[in-house]
């Protein structure tokens, strides 16, 4: 097994490049997912505030949409 890891003496370069590539791609994916999750949470909060304004407005205006959810 150790012979396999030594990769004909170039082990550090090969495993190094695989490690860097893996790290970069996974980091980019996780950063995107984390950003997406936090933006979704913030958006849901703001949408909730927006919806809280909807009922009062519907009572006054005869918009076709049914009032409330």
């Amino acid at each position: 097994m150790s012979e396999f890891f030594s990769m004909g003496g170039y082990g550090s370069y090969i495993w190094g490049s695989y490690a860097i590539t893996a790290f970069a791609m996974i980091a980019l994916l996780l950063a995107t997912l984390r950003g997406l999750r936090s933006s979704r949470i913030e958006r849901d909060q703001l949408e909730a505030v927006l919806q809280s304004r909807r009922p009062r407005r519907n009572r006054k205006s005869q918009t076709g949409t049914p009032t409330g959810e």
Partner: protein
Amino acid sequence: MADFSGSDLTCLRGERLVFGGLSFAAKSGDAVMLRGRNGAGKSSLLRVMAGLLSPRSGQVCWDGESIADDRIAHHARLHYLGHPDAVKPVLSVRDNLRLWGQLRGVQNIEHEIDAALDVLDIHHLARVSGRYLSSGQKRRTALARILMGQSDLWLLDEPTVGLDRESCGEVSRMIADFRARGGIVIYSTHIDLEVDNPTVLDLDEFAIPMVEWLLEHPELDGTSPVSTQEAAQ
């Protein structure tokens, strides 16, 4: 009889909705006064009319043709006066005006410049370079620019800002002469400029509160069409 009209215009600046479902019509000799609170979109509407800003929906037409089809022709028929005076401090008043005359292909430029300076009685400043002018004099230089070359449409964004009382009178005389020659004037102002029976376009009527608009348009990715009737009813 030229007619200048806009139908169902919606204007978005960045994410902020400025106005929606706005329509207007003006014929030769008309004057349209834009009124509305700050941020109601008076300047944005003037820029949409000039073709600088493309509306999110709806279109602006001159004699029935959309202005976006032939941009150069529309530019040839209009004069636009924005807030900045576009006066170069290094150049004299006459040199400042010469470029705009040449761009409009004015034939006897020097004569036209003199005539324009006379109307706004800043002819005595012709040699003075821009940095010595007061803000009122700079505004008059900008106003002199729109007198050069022939045009059918004036779009004036608060033309009288920085002007004293009697020069406002000159501006309204200018507008009256231009309308008499069959021009259309659309202007926004905060002082009551004596213009006889202008049609008033109050932008507050077309202001759709952002909250309402956001309720109607849950997704802002633009793929869902912006139907302003639905928003404005």
